[in-house]
């Protein structure tokens, strides 16, 4: 190999090709780096990671065994579930499933409940899915036609459908009914109350403040108890509203007071310029609210609104204390049935109830997040 010349100098070696870059040190890339950064960044976080892993190892296998491998999936009565070492008694949930769904609703008529729920689900999907068309028609159907139709479907119509008294309603039907009525009534009523509270008219303002503060100041249990136990003492028997209607009204009014404060938060977040701009355009009060203020204010408080809905959905279980058989109450009653009673029955029932409530609340939460992302598109940086 001959020596090379660069300029007028003789050099011994010149590298012609570029060496590839070395990989980054092992601890700064891939899984180890991720672990180090997220799991073991400090001694404390390392301890927390290890104890969390221990916790999972300690709980999950037993839970899995209890809920799946040791569980009794089919049985004619509670005997197999009472055997030592038996896990969750899903057979009991299977046997009581209709009761959980419909309560005491006559079994020959349950198609009416199913039909009502299916129509409701279709309308809700129509209303909520962003890509669906003709939302105005959907809203009319859901908020006006559907409640009336559902009422007659469930309760019956003279000569067409046999009468099913509300004291026979129960289970999931009642839970969804209370939640749906609460949600549908509380949002518009809450908006009105929030507007009223910010109104310049003294009487409107006074009434709204009084209502909101009074209702928020008492526990829901008290409201339900007043409605279901004390009300019949004060009004003649013929005037007392139906036992199912009372908690519906109570829950709706209660939720509306909370909703009003959530909406008011949104209204207060609106810059003054939005109001002034709307007025400068010559919009009337209601036009301003409908076209400019509320769409923005409500978008801002979606997390708060959904939070209220989720809380309301779970609060429906409180109607049980006034003797109404909502879903949780049917679970509690069914576990007492001597045919099935056993050491694992209560746990199984409550696990099933937890799954039910979790599915509904999680769905609401996911939908609200989707909606937030979509509506915030204009403000994204």
């Amino acid at each position: 190999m001959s020596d090379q010349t660069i300029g007028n100098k003789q050099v011994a070696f010149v590298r012609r090709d570029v060496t590839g870059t070395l990989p980054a040190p092992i601890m700064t890339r891939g899984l180890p780096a991720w672990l180090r950064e997220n799991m073991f960044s400090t001694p404390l976080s390392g301890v927390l990671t290890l104890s969390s892993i221990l916790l999972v190892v300690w709980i999950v296998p037993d839970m899995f065994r209890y809920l799946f491998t040791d569980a009794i999936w089919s049985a004619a009565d509670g005997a197999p579930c009472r055997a030592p070492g038996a896990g969750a008694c899903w057979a009991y949930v299977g046997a009581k499933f209709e009761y959980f769904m419909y309560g005491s609703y006559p079994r020959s008529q349950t198609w009416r409940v199913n039909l009502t729920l299916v129509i409701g689900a279709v309308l809700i999907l129509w209303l909520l899915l962003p890509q669906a068309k003709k939302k105005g028609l959907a809203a009319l159907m859901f908020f006006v036609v559907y409640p009336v139709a559902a009422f007659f479907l469930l309760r019956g119509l003279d000569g067409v459908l046999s009468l099913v008294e509300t004291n026979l309603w129960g289970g999931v039907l009642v839970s969804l009914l209370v939640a749906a009525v609460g949600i549908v009534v509380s949002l518009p009523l809450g908006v009105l109350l929030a507007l009223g509270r910010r109104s310049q008219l003294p009487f409107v303002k006074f009434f709204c403040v009084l209502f909101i503060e009074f209702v928020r100041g008492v526990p829901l249990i008290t409201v339900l108890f007043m409605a279901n136990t004390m009300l019949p003492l004060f009004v003649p028997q013929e005037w007392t509203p139906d036992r199912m209607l009372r908690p519906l009204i109570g829950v709706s009014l209660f939720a509306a007071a909370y909703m009003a404060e959530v909406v008011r938060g949104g209204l207060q977040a609106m810059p003054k310029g939005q109001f002034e701009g709307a007025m400068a355009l010559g919009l009337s009060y209601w036009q301003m609210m409908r076209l400019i203020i509320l769409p923005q204010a409500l978008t801002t408080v979606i997390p708060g609104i959904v939070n209220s809905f989720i809380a309301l959905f779970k609060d429906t279980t409180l109607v049980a204390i006034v003797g109404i058989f909502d879903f949780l109450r049917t679970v509690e009653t069914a576990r007492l049935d001597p045919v099935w009673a056993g050491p694992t029955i209560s746990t199984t029932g409550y696990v099933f109830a937890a799954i039910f409530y979790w599915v509904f609340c999680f769905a609401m939460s996911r939908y609200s997040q989707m909606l937030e992302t979509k509506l915030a598109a204009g403000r994204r940086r």
Partner: protein
Amino acid sequence: MKRIIAAASIAAVGAIAATGASAQSGKTLEQIKQRGFLACGTNPGLAGFGLPDSQGAWTGLDVDLCRGIAASIFNDPTKVKFIPMTAKDRFTALQSGEIDVLARNGTWTQSREAELGLLFAGVNYYDGQGFMVRKKLNINSALELNGASVCVQQGTTTELNLADFFRANNLKYEGVAFATSDEAIKAYDSGRCDAYTTDASGLYAERVKLVNADEHVVLPEVISKEPLGPAVRQGDDQWFNIVKWTHFAMVNAEELGITKANVDEKAKSNSPEIKRLLGSEGDFGKTLGLTRDWSYRIVKHVGNYGEIFDKNVGEGSRLKIRRGLNNLWTKGGIQYAPPIR
């Protein structure tokens, strides 16, 4: 919080009872007939007394009593609306007229009649606190429980009765208290205690929850008085009589050997007692405001006392409660009905 509500409602009930705003005589029956059904307050969930089955149909001893009342009025045991009542709102609902009769295993006490303005129309189940132990302990009486550990629910009269019983008999025991009956029975089942105590009817209901129910036995001693029966509001003596005599008709029917199955055959009998009960002689139903065949209707549609006992809490059910005190007076119990004549 709950206590305040309860206190307020009891005060309100007392006020209304004091002003005598409740129904006048005869009004309740009239209202029921007009309305077309009996409004019966039941326990929202107590096995054997008031509990909806898998179909949602109400079952139980108290429930069948209400069916009996409905049968005597309408000749149709289905004309009754069951309204589940919690312990808190039951008396208020009775006062306000929302329910006509409260058949909710309520204990008949002096204060409930004197302060709350109620009338108990009889005792359809004599309950009392008892003990359950494992069979392998070979104990036949609660008096042999010296030194035993006893699982009990906290803060109940049960706990106090337990202390009284052991002190009165100069026995030692170790009480292990739990907040709920579920926890207490679980602890007993896992071997934490030698005995478990609550009301006897509850003992049988809890026993079926145990891993192996047959290994446990309920001791014969009953250490407290818990007479359970239907209650009506004061001020309508006719209605009070109807509820009372519905229970008595069932007990009399059992005593005379009249059952759901043989009532038609027995109606042809020559026995004057049977004739008076089933209405072929005298106007006994009419004087109550009902029809002559009122008790025939009760037995035909619902059955006699022994039958409903057996079906709901006795040998025909999973609870398998012995008749004991609830047997007829002729068979060693204290169920005794005045004669119909």
